[in-house]
């Protein structure tokens, strides 16, 4: 390939010619090709490759950002599951997943995967200079992204109401009891000032299923009494919702699961918001024909890369956060 460079070039003539040409060039500076082609690129294909490469470099840093969070997830899942197993308790990740709304999580996965298809199609039609289809697909993508965030907001609101948000609203005892779980806190399962695996060696009484069950029945009775006090219909409803006793879960460890859950889905949601913001600007540009008049579809393609990346993050988040099982 070095053959190209050493091929004889008629330099003086070329320079002279270039001078003459530049005299008439309004842009000057050796401008070449279409207007969107930056002067430091030889041609559109090279600019496209450079843009892609730059976006991939950015996405590598993004992978490392999310990677650190996935590492935290994995580490604590391992440590807490081992501790829970050793102390005869339930995995806090399993219980935490169980309390999340799997239907909403599944719907969101569906919405996001569909939006990935529409973005891929938008890039496709931008390349074909089809302004109408490009605009339609970008619009659909924006709506899907907004629906995703809306569902997320509904989910987070429900979590807040149920007392599952560490720091803001953390009181999961009731919702745990509804699903058949008992919360172990630093004051112990039955106020024994002992929490397995958290504060020192077990005293005389080791937490057994019996202890947890007694606690569970106590919570259940309280709730039934409360429900009866507020109204008969609600009492019947509350009774139906109650699950058979399943086991004890370490409250502090489950709190960590929710910290990780909100951090990861929160960072993902921030990326979605940025994506929607960019997409809104791009829809504005697309309406004026910026991507289709001159075949400058590169911004759409780069945006597509970003959107697909955010989609991939969710592809991993969904099974890891929502599809845990209580064993």
């Amino acid at each position, binding site marked *: 390939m070095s053959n190209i460079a050493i091929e004889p070039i008629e330099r003086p003539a070329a320079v002279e010619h270039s001078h003459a040409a530049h005299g008439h060039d309004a842009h000057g500076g050796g401008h070449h090709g279409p207007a969107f082609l930056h002067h430091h690129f030889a041609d559109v294909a090279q600019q496209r*490759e450079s843009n892609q490469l730059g976006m991939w470099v950015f996405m590598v840093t993004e992978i490392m950002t999310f*990677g650190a969070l996935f590492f935290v997830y994995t580490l604590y899942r391992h440590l807490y599951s081992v501790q829970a197993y050793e102390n005869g308790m339930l995995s806090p990740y399993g219980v935490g997943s169980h309390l999340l709304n799997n239907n909403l999580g599944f719907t969101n996965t569906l919405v996001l995967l569909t939006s990935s298809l529409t973005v891929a199609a938008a890039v496709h039609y931008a390349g074909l200079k089809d302004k109408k289809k490009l605009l339609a697909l970008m619009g659909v993508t924006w709506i899907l992204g907004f629906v995703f965030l809306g569902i997320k907001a509904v989910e987070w609101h429900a979590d807040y109401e149920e007392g599952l948000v560490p720091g803001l609203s953390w009181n999961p005892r009731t919702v745990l009891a509804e699903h058949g779980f008992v919360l172990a806190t630093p004051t112990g399962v039955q106020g024994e000032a002992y929490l397995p695996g958290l504060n020192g060696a077990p005293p005389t009484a080791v937490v057994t299923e019996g202890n947890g069950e007694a606690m569970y029945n106590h919570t259940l009775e309280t709730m039934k009494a409360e429900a009866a006090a507020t109204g008969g219909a609600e009492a019947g409803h509350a009774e139906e919702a109650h699950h058979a006793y399943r086991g004890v879960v370490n409250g502090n460890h489950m709190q960590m699961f929710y910290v990780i859950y909100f951090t990861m889905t929160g960072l993902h949601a921030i990326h979605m918001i940025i994506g929607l913001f960019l997409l809104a600007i791009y829809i504005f540009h697309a309406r004026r024909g910026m991507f289709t008049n001159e075949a400058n579809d590169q911004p759409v393609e780069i945006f597509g890369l970003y959107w697909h990346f955010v989609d991939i993050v969710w592809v991993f988040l969904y099974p890891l956060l929502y599809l845990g099982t209580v064993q």
Partner: protein
Amino acid sequence: MANPTEQRLTNQLEHPQETAGNVGHAGSGTGPDSGPHEHNQDHLDEHTHHVSMGTYYAVFAFLMVMLMLTVGAWWIDEYKFPLGHWSIPIAVGIAAIKSIAIVLIFMHVKFSSRLVQIFACTGIVFMGIMFVLTFNDYFTRGWVPIAGR
């Protein structure tokens, strides 16, 4: 010859006087603007539309099947028989297959230049290094007694 860079270089070899990118020649910024190379650019730059919409639909259908598999595996785990230690590897494995499909087709990495392909792999390689080294630290703590502790 799906690779745009290779295509450009081949074109440079075959038509050095007309091809953009050769020093002192058309499109290099050091030579005069000429008519033919604009046509060349359009010809070379057919990046985003070598995948047909049919391929995208196929990938989407594949993703949907994989999503059903993920949920199916969870359903078996929760209601039929516990998969135990296998539930996480199965879930992450399916997610990895899904992402590979997205990266290769939706993100065009399959049709990109070799350099972009290498960078696409870099992220996962460095994440692997981070996981391995940091777990090395966490899981070997307390193995070796430290003086003064």
